[in-house]
């Protein structure tokens, strides 16, 4: 579709990006910026052969970033005989790094799981990432099998700091934010090299290196006050895989070490729900899963426990593990008189303080504000 430059037909963003990707994959030795701006669809229409192309160059810089964000390996090649000469830089997309490796293929059952996994993220950037991953999966042409029962699992990442933190994680940027530690009256500024963002016990945590203490710390995203900003010029080399697992292991260890002893009202909401989380039950559940693995059971094909009965005992005493005393105290306060904390003392006091605060805030005239 040859066009003359002065007509400047409207070329959509996706057409320009698509044409750029095709041109950079097709080239072996790479194209210089001048090659790209003067010949590639979407740039060439606006290219001035003897003028100032500064706007177009900035456009190309942004397009490059957008293409890389999609996981497309857009490379910069320095001229071997003249390194550092920006005019001779070449750009290309090596086909071997662009193509999905041949041994990465998925069965219909796997695809069913991946489709479900992609629906988990309902909000924010991860839902867009999941949608694009699913589009790429669909390109493989495998039809997924159908689950027996409908599922609609959802995870939320509602903390405002989630997206900036996970971006900083990708780009190896040190971030700064105000953090309000429980028990402290005012937030303190932290400079952190983020290593992983993990969900544990229903809460998002940042795992990272505190730049001032030069030590690893875990932060609750819900306690980050105000915006997360990147610290200009401060970067670090992102870790390989495994940091997320490490963060979860440390939180698991903390969870295992903290034990709360509660007295619950038999038959109450607290008794039914908290006793399901009682210490010891979780380990037992994991062992069961392990046994199924050992038997080599294919995903959900042979388990047909037609007569399984789940017995729930409602004991007076419930022992719970926890990671964060304030989060557990919030939850336990919600149960009002159905729960009495026996130990530890700090949890006992935290729950009592909350209940007294709520009682006082709701006693008397409506002018009283919250504690």
């Amino acid at each position, binding site marked *: *579709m*040859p066009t003359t430059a002065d007509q400047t037909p409207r070329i959509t*963003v*996706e*057409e320009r*990006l698509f044409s750029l990707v*095709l*041109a950079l*994959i097709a080239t072996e030795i790479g194209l210089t910026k001048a090659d790209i701006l003067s010949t590639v*669809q979407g740039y060439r229409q606006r290219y001035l052969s003897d003028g100032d192309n500064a706007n177009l160059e900035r456009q190309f810089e942004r397009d490059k970033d957008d293409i890389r964000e*999609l*996981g497309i390996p857009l490379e910069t090649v320095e001229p071997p005989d003249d390194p550092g000469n920006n005019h001779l830089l070449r750009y290309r997309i090596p086909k071997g790094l662009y193509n*999905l*490796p041949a041994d990465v293929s998925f069965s219909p059952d796997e695809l069913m*799981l991946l489709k479900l996994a992609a*629906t988990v*993220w309902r909000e924010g950037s*991860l839902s*867009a990432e999941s949608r*694009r*991953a699913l589009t*790429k999966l669909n*390109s*493989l042409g495998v*039809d997924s099998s159908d689950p027996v*029962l*409908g599922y*609609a*699992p*959802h995870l*939320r990442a509602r903390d405002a700091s989630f997206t900036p933190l996970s971006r900083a*994680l990708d780009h190896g940027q040190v971030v700064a934010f105000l953090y309000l530690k429980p028990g402290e009256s005012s937030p303190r500024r932290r400079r952190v090299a983020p290593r*992983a963002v*993990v*969900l544990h016990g*229903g809460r998002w945590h940042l795992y990272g290196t505190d730049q001032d203490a030069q030590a690893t710390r875990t932060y609750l995203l819900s306690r980050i006050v105000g915006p997360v900003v990147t610290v200009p010029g401060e970067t670090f080399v992102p870790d390989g895989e495994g940091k997320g697992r490490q963060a979860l292991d440390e*939180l698991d260890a903390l969870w295992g070490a903290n034990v709360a002893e509660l007295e619950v009202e038999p038959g109450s*909401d607290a008794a*039914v729900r908290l006793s399901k989380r009682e210490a010891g039950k979780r380990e037992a559940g994991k062992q069961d899963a*392990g046994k199924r*693995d050992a038997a080599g059971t294919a*995903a*959900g094909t042979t*388990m*047909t426990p*037609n007569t*399984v*009965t*789940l*017995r729930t005992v409602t004991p007076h005493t419930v022992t719970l593990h926890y990671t964060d005393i304030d989060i557990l105290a919030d939850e336990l*306060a*919600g*149960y009002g008189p159905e729960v009495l904390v026996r130990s530890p003392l700090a949890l006992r*006091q935290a*729950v009592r303080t909350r*209940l007294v605060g*709520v009682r006082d805030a*709701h006693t008397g005239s409506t002018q009283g*504000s*919250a504690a």
Partner: protein
Amino acid sequence: MTARPPALGASDKLTFLLSLIPYLMDHDSVTVAEVAGHFGVPAERVREAVRLIAVSGIPGETHQYLDGDLFDIHWDEFEEHDRITLTHLVAIDDSPRFSAREAAALIAGLQYLSSLPENADRDAVASLMAKLSRGASGTPTQLAVSSPDSDAAMSVIQSAGRSSVQVAFDYLNARGEHEHRFVDPLRLESVDNDWYLRGWCHLRQAPRTFRLDRMSELRTTTEPVGSHDAGLVLPDTLFQASDDDLSVVIELPASALVLLADYAPARATTPAGGDRVRTTLRVAHYHGLKRLVAGLAGLVTVVEPAEARQAVADWAAAGAARYDDPSGEA
């Protein structure tokens, strides 16, 4: 005018173009409807993409985008029969890799789902995650999700679903009442750490939502599920407002509104001094409200009606009183 940051839409469209080509390569003469069905997109979006692909390509030796440098399709088939046949390919012939973040989103999603009965085979899930890592162009972002406890209740419900029989359980509702329920399971839903069964409740003769952690004595039965569920459409939201609901005015910091998103507070808020705002919640009864407010101690205060304030005050006072007895060391 195009010199503005590309909308999210452009990234999605580019991904679709790059994904559609390898699919079309593998599927000779496929209908637009089939493609739309496979990718889960509207047919018109497929047609738009095909039209763009058919005129796209590389500048080529001449820098003129000549015919041999462009993709081509069987135009008559496309225009007359809505069928797509790629007749010439340029530059790409394979599926693109995942970005580091895309792989991370799926891996974290799988970790979250690892308590489902479908995921009982942990080795299979681990190998699936490894494949996603290998298929990504960078090390997946370190996002991790602790697998929730594998819940035996889900296996029971799934097994009932497979055999099309009802499940039975004792249910403690939010009002604190115990009832025995027979339910046709329709869907398992979750929000973060909380799992819910949605199904047809034979006691209420209506679709209902049940929290898994409020069920006791769950078992599959030999009673077949009813036939009514074929045309039954479940509402999108877990909780439905009812005309009988009570309105409650609450006061809270604006930043805490997000914590109440599930309760669909009225969009309208009025300033209440400082960073605090007032808004209206609709609740079925005060039993749920008092638990909600006591669990958000220091954040949320009920303003009116007086009965609601009283219910919350009584609940908290009864809780606090348990710490006042002589044996209490607090």
